[in-house]
């Protein structure tokens, strides 16, 4: 193993949260460094090196290394799936799903969650230092793809000495990575759970991302991507990008229930452009808190990776992407998700059926839109729990509640 692993810093919510810039270069999580002679080969043809991948683990790897699960995070997620985020001080983004006794049970499985390539919490991304210049990469970082993200995770798994993953699980962009894992490394993935995902980014998805990118690039403080060197931040542009994207993560119904046409701290409209409505105030708040934890250039890179994702283009067809697969799939969608609608999940299921794959498909009734996969949706938890138990039985590892002698 050429890469070395640092011990994770213990995150303590009582401590002041660390700055985003520090976390991009030297994260508080575990980290694997790969030197220049162990580069990462990217879809763009570039060999990226040296590079690093920041990750967290939860639970214990068993003796025959058969209980490892990779959790893949979404666009603005991070490696802190089930532990306190050092930048925000908030609990892990999937702490409802991952933990002791949770559907992805850390008492039984060894969970690995890595920051994506192009991200901003410790894995090589545009805010990392370019060793050739000693300055942040900015736009000199090659464009990365979902497949590149998965390649980097596979290198991490190699580094950890794990051959086959028990499962790969993730929602949204995390679900895209799950599909890519299953397509690129079928023999290394026993079970795959793509949630609220798609085998391609649709034209509408690309359109929304382009709006966000243009908002960032229109901010005078973006400085052609060199804002870190020039000591400014395109906070306004990034906040607008987040506001636009946030709307796509919710359903009309959930917005209506939560805010309706309610006014914000006032009895009547002001005949001005202040945030009269609660929804305006909410979105502005979402935008402003997002810029504290996310890097604008990372937003460009990671949205681009999603836009380029199209399994059918890579393999000829989605069916061919999963030809002869032995992986067990559990595809999941939500009724009110219009960003990654059920029709896209069905497309995956049809292709898996055509490949005679072992597949379950569950559409969950929820009015919470795309974000439902992050929220408290008991039917989703029941489904994941059941699927994991069935898969554990098939894999011959003890499922929660089924230990030998228990």
């Amino acid at each position, binding site marked *: 193993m050429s890469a070395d692993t640092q011990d994770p810093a213990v995150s303590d919510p009582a401590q002041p949260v660390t700055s985003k810039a520090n976390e991009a270069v030297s994260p508080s999580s575990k980290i694997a460094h790969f030197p220049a002679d162990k580069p990462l080969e990217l879809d763009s043809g570039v060999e990226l090196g040296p590079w690093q991948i920041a990750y967290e683990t939860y639970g214990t790897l068993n003796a025959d290394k058969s209980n490892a699960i990779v959790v893949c995070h979404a666009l603005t997620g991070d490696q802190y799936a089930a532990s306190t985020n050092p930048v925000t001080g908030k609990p892990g983004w999937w702490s409802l799903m991952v933990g002791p006794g949770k559907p992805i049970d850390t008492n039984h499985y060894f969970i690995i969650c890595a920051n994506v390539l192009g991200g901003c919490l410790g894995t090589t991304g545009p805010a990392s230092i370019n060793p050739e210049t000693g300055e942040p990469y900015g736009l000199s970082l090659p464009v990365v793809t979902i497949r590149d993200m998965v390649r980097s995770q596979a290198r991490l798994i190699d580094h950890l000495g794990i051959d086959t993953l028990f499962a790969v699980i993730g929602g949204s962009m995390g679900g895209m990575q799950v599909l890519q894992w299953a397509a690129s490394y079928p023999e290394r993935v026993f079970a795959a759970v793509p949630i609220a995902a798609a085998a391609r980014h649709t034209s509408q998805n690309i359109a929304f991302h382009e709006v966000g990118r243009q908002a960032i690039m229109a901010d005078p403080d973006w400085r052609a991507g060199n804002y870190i060197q020039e000591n400014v931040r395109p906070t306004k542009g990034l906040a607008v990008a987040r506001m636009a994207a946030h709307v796509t993560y919710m359903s009309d119904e959930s917005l209506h229930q939560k805010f309706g046409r309610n006014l914000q701290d006032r009895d009547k409209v002001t005949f001005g452009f202040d945030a009269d409505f609660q929804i305006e105030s909410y979105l502005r708040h979402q935008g402003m808190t997002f810029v504290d934890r996310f890097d604008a250039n990372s937003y460009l890179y990671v949205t681009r990776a999603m836009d380029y994702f199209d399994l059918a283009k890579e393999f000829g067809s989605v069916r061919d992407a999963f030809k002869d697969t032995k992986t*067990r799939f*559990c*595809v999941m969608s939500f009724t009110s998700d219009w960003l990654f609608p059920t029709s896209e999940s069905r497309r995956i*299921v*049809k292709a898996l*059926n*055509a*490949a*005679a794959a*072992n*597949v*379950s*498909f*569950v*559409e*969950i*009734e929820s009015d919470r839109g795309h974000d439902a996969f992050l929220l408290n949706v008991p*039917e989703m938890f*029941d*489904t994941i*729990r*059941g*699927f994991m*138990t*069935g*898969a554990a*039985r098939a894999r011959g590892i003890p499922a929660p509640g089924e230990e030998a002698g228990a």
Partner: protein
Amino acid sequence: MMNLAPTQTRPGETRGDHKVVASLVPHGARVLDIGSEDGALLDLLVRERQVDGRGIELSQEGVNRSVARGLSVIQGNADTDLADYPDQAFDVVIMSQTLQATYAPREVMSELLRIGEQVIVSIPNFAHWRNRMQLLFRGRMPVTKYLPYEWYDTPNIHFCSLRDFVELCRELDAKVEKAVALSARGNKIPVNAPWWVWNIVAEQAVFLLKR
């Protein structure tokens, strides 16, 4: 698919027609159960016959319950979704009490015979003597404990008799390897009888077919 012909069992009890179906499935077979309801038959097959089992179920609630109990089930429709599967994808394809509710039973049967090496179909027998009596003496469409629907609300849109089904199999060049006549409760009718007798006394039957 819903279970369209209710069979009377106590909770936790294995349905008689399920026991018969299970007895026809080889150990370790690759099985597709079409109309798998809440996964009861699939679960039985996985436990007792160690099959590699999949299910298709029309109701989302049934699908979600099945997946939560660890079974591989997708939401789908027999009339439209069987076309996705490759030829001979399964050792055994099962359609239990569902064929009579499909839009195009003949096409569905062709698909079953295409994707499965063996096909197990169970159907209610519309020519059972109670049904014959109701039609003959009351002049009304039969409504029985076993088939409790009125003509206007029945999901069973393509009823047939056992003889009709055997005739369809002949037209499709499907060989009936085995046929088991059952009562409404799913008990085997323990007599050897010619087809015309079964067509009167059996309330349902299970067929094992091969191309």
